[in-house]
């Protein structure tokens, strides 16, 4: 497994806001078979990835998302492995199809608890409106 990030990934990351979150990548060929992977896969909650095997057999969630030929697609706050929240970046260049995984567990959990409070309030609000209507 490569520890050093490939040029394609470094170039892409430069277009994104700077952050010190854990990052991992998969590079796939035109048949969506993994040809390279690396970075901090484990910290991103991704099980070990084998070269020469279809990406969708190792990470079923990305099955329908690739190939990509237009501009990059970003799926924020994606949970494909229990307990880990990641941002999934998909892009392509002359080297291959790239899946860049950026850990977002910490901010994701914070967002979850904010959203939880907000939506619980919304439900109470809805119920009160309903009660008033029935009076």
């Amino acid at each position: 497994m490569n520890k050093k990030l490939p040029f394609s990934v470094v170039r892409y990351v430069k277009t994104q806001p700077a952050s010190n979150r854990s990052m991992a990548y998969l590079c796939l060929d035109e048949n969506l078979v993994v040809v390279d992977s690396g970075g901090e896969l484990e910290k991103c909650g991704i099980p070990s990835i084998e070269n020469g095997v279809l990406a969708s057999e190792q990470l079923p969630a990305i099955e329908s998302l690739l190939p990509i030929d237009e501009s990059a697609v970003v799926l924020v706050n994606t949970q494909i492995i229990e307990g880990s929240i990641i941002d999934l970046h998909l892009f392509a260049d002359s080297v291959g199809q790239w899946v860049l995984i950026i850990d977002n567990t910490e901010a994701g959990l914070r967002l979850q608890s904010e959203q939880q409070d907000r939506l619980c309030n919304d439900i109470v609000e809805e119920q009160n409106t309903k009660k008033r209507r029935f009076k």
Partner: protein
Amino acid sequence: MLQKKVCMLGAFAVGKTSLVRRYVDSIFSEKYTTTIGVKIDKKVVSLGAQDISLLLWDVYGEDNHQKVLPAYLRGMAGYLLVVDPTRPNTYKSAVSLNKLVNDTLGPKPFVLVLNKSDLKEDWENETVDVQALKDEAVAVMETSAKTDSGVSEMFQSMASALLPKNSRGSIPDE
């Protein structure tokens, strides 16, 4: 094996997560835990002779403050459009989410799911015209994630709509 991406779409708290948990893990919880972003599960559905693997994308529910991001729909083969008829406003979200799909991907097969059938005495009439939705849906199904009524039938109905036309059989009754 045939593998298809299916999204759970609907307003917040209609029971999208509960339906997936019931179907995939056979559990139900009264406690409400919101979903952020999207959570992806896999479940193999047997349709008579044919197995099909569904990737269930449990997308966070649309609410007053946030809309579903179209990127989550990428590669989707079909969707479950869930409403909670005890909250008639959730029909409105269903109509707008259906429009989002059509604008983003064009028409895809979907099942219109009326969840919380265990609370049927509290169901109210829809506040928007949903006849078009009912007509477009491959099926309209009543479910309860709580009592497990209609849940597997609903996922099977979705799965069978995703089979290639020539291999589509009738849905087995378990």
